[in-house]
């Protein structure tokens, strides 16, 4: 399998203020993400999941180590790897269509083509009736769909999602998870997905990367070979759940207990 994203020896220190003590958010992190896989990142609060996504997507630069996408070092964010922001980051002054067109507009796609593509994607995420509505007129689930459509519009090779369904109710979340799998299959993207929800990870992931508390590292990667749609009550699922749990607990037990997250 082809490695899509490679992070080696990645460390990240933050300095809150000038002169303040540095916080080591991440140290010696190694991670290979394969082309076309759906990787879930799981770890305790404050272990550096968001930080890692920011580094992988090029929003921030590591203080140690290197990150590459398709073998080229990642320097700044770009449309080949799109992050679905927390709270979705939809533009409130644009309609659903305007939001979905954003990436195409910034890429100078001609208006007619832009419009056609946007409408196609809006249909794909099932928002036909909301094309001309503004984000504040949409439910959380619908906003999430808009954010997805907006990201998919630029045909990214990689999609980063940071607890994307955390704010959704159980039913909507369930629907969105199914939707995500469908879109992922159709678009053949690589997806890196942060979650705190074991079930979500077990439902979605090809592999689950479990992180240690701060400074974050990858503690263990659990591969889930079960075909989708998955039955969470199956023995395989129980086994994977057990493995994730063990990795998480081991990570916490062996970490430096000095500072709570």
């Amino acid at each position, binding site marked *: 399998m082809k490695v899509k994203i490679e992070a080696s020896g990645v460390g990240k220190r933050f300095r809150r203020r000038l002169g303040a003590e540095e916080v080591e958010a991440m140290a010696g992190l190694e991670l290979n993400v394969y082309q076309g896989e759906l990787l879930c990142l799981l770890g305790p609060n404050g272990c550096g999941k968001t930080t890692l996504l920011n580094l992988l997507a090029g929003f921030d630069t590591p203080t140690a180590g290197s990150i590459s996408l398709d073998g080229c070092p990642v320097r700044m964010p770009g449309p080949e790897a799109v992050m679905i922001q927390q709270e979705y*980051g939809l533009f409130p*002054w644009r309609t659903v269509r305007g939001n979905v067109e954003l990436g195409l507009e910034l890429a100078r796609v001609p208006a007619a083509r832009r419009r056609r593509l946007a409408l196609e994607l809006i249909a794909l995420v099932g928002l036909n009736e909301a094309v001309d509505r503004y984000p504040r007129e949409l439910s959380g689930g619908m906003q999430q769909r808009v954010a997805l459509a907006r990201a998919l519009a630029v045909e990214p090779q990689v999609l980063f999602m940071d607890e994307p369904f955390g704010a959704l109710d159980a039913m909507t979340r369930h629907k969105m998870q199914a939707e995500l799998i469908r879109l992922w299959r159709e678009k053949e993207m690589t997806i890196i997905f942060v979650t705190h929800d074991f079930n979500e990870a077990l439902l979605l992931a090809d592999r689950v990367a479990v992180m240690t508390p701060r400074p974050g590292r990858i503690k263990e990667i659990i591969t889930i070979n079960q075909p989708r749609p998955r039955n969470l009550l199956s023995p395989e699922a129980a086994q994977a759940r057990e493995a994730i749990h063990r990795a998480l607990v081991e990570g916490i037990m062996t970490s430096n207990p000095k500072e709570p997250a």
Partner: protein
Amino acid sequence: MSAKPQAPPEKPAPASAAERTPARCLSKPSSRRRRVTWVPCLPGERLFFPLLALGAFLLLWQAAAAWYGSDYLLPGPAAVLLALLEVARSGMLLEHVAVSLYRFGVGYLLAALVALPLGLVFGWYSRLHQAFDPLIQVLRPISPVAWFPLAVLWFKIGDLPAIFIIFIASFFPMLLATIAAVRGVDRVYIRVARNFGSSEWDLLHKVVIPAAFPYITVGLHIALGVGWIHLVAGEMLGAQSGLGYFIIDARNFLRTDQVIAGMLLVGLLGLSLDRLMSWTERRVRSRW
């Protein structure tokens, strides 16, 4: 994500009056409780109390004027109304109003033309803002009235001194609001745009300006009020026309009734401008 705050555990409260009352009685509004929403029953009802207050005010004013007995020191509302009609008939009034609105428009627009781009630049490039902030902070508290001597010195007489005063008065609210608006733009919008490979220029006019827009309009609104307040002051300088001049001129002729008529006009026009602004603001902000 974050857990909802738990409701406090129920305490065994002492049996209150409400607790002993059967539930069906509680739903009836008690006669002493004020109604929270007031649904007008007649179309004119919303006007009724303001009109009543206005009537009472006019009556008191008229009574005070009658008691004073001097049209010079305190003309009554009737005398003021007559004065207003008199100058209105002479055709001069419309001219004064027009020239005032013209000066105000020019001063205000010039201020917007300078303050908004400057505010965008300062808001965006924080280094530049840091450099200029002390200067802004020193100039800002200077009352526009303190610029009078310079205004007259530089612009002599005519429209320009008044325009300059209005410019100064509306400039700072606009500038400061724009800087704050740009600095306050949610970073997530910028991240999204950068993720899609936005150029700096696109970032500015497709993200920063629309995102800051609602807060910029707040500054524009404040500047409208401040500018209008200083219009009259500005026209008391070298001007030979306009509402400020009209008031000063009436005073020189000992026409207190016309002075008050002029004041009233300034107030009414200011109110109209403010309402117009609110209306536009509501229309453009309805989406944000």
